[in-house]
């Protein structure tokens, strides 16, 4: 469910990027605030807009978010605390977490087998709970097959493992082209798959979220899990990159 940008919206977005100097990591969990009582203003709210953030006018959509949150809290449907906790949870999910899982699968064949057959049990072994929203499926890159993931109908993505997806994954351009011209898309990302290796596109049309288990690069024998995890980027788990040991092979962009 992504959209293209008009020039005006792109300008606002650029302002937003410039206004943000760091990640939104306020340590929400350490605030002792309880938002069950009435506030006329936001100074007690750990998530009140800060000076350097959200530069530029507040859009109607941002106002709507504030209005819905206020109403849902007033009606006891949600609390500010649990919204903050959920933000923290999502912030804690990232490619680094996924990379840890991939590296474990590379060094431990039984873990890899579990990951492919019963991923929840495998993730639980490394302390990861992906919650209730979706099921995952891990697809393995081999010498014969390179997998790439897309959701043409919306933007389904394993975000409870990898965090929020990049904007390009949600874009109309990626969603529309990856199914019809995956090799062209991969070249744009600097990945050239040899003709003898099959490219397999997975369109996440139902409730399964797909994760690519990239192939372990040659020349990594005896590496620690930490060293291996450092090779695995987010794009490796989407299929728009492959882990590389030396300088990354890039097609001319």
């Amino acid at each position: 469910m992504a959209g293209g940008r008009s020039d005006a919206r792109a300008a606002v977005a650029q302002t937003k990027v410039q206004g943000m100097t760091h990640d939104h990591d306020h340590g929400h969990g350490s605030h002792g605030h309880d938002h069950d009582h009435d506030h006329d203003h936001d100074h007690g709210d750990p998530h009140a807009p800060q000076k350097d953030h959200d530069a530029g006018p507040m859009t109607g959509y941002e106002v709507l978010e504030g209005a819905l949150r206020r109403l849902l809290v007033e009606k006891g449907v949600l609390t500010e605390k649990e919204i903050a906790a959920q933000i923290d949870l999502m912030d804690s999910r990232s490619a680094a977490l996924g990379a840890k899982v991939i590296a474990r699968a590379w060094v431990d064949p039984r873990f890899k087998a579990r990951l492919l057959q019963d991923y929840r049990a495998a993730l639980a072994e490394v302390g990861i709970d992906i919650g209730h929203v979706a099921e995952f499926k891990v697809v393995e890159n081999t010498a014969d097959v390179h997998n790439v993931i897309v959701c043409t109908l919306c933007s389904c993505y394993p975000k409870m493992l990898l965090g929020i997806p990049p904007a390009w994954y949600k874009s109309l351009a990626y969603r529309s082209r990856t199914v019809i011209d995956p090799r062209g898309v991969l070249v744009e990302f600097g990945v050239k798959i040899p003709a003898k290796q099959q490219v397999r596109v997975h369109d996440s049309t139902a409730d399964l979220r797909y994760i690519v288990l990239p192939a372990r690069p040659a020349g990594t024998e005896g590496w620690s899990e930490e060293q291996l995890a450092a090779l695995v980027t987010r794009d490796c788990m989407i299929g728009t990159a492959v882990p590389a040991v030396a300088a990354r092979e890039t097609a001319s962009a």
Partner: protein
Amino acid sequence: MTPERKTLVRDDAGGRAVHDVGGLDFGPIDRSEHDLALWEKRVDAMMILLFAPGRATFRVDAMRRVIEDYGQQCYDRTEYYEKWVRAMRNLLVEQEVVSRAEIEAAMRAVADEARRNGRPVGPLDIPW
């Protein structure tokens, strides 16, 4: 801050629904990345909380259905979380958790507060 009124024509769309874009041509992929704004993270968080089995205010399938009913111009020209916050609003009203009047009043209050804090506020009208 009105978006410019470009006509976005999709070739070969045929009888497809607006969101069903596999195989169409939208040009090159913009790979630039940026952090989500705080309000977008909050939309994301509220959605996930509202989907929770204990709550099950509505399912993600209902959110998708609402988004798929947006007209093409709106679909193509809004950002991801703009689509989702609008769908959340519509479903909360559909499920009678909040009313339109309450939303409109709360939006005015949030906008007034922002202006008092020195932040300009754009137009509040978001199509239903």
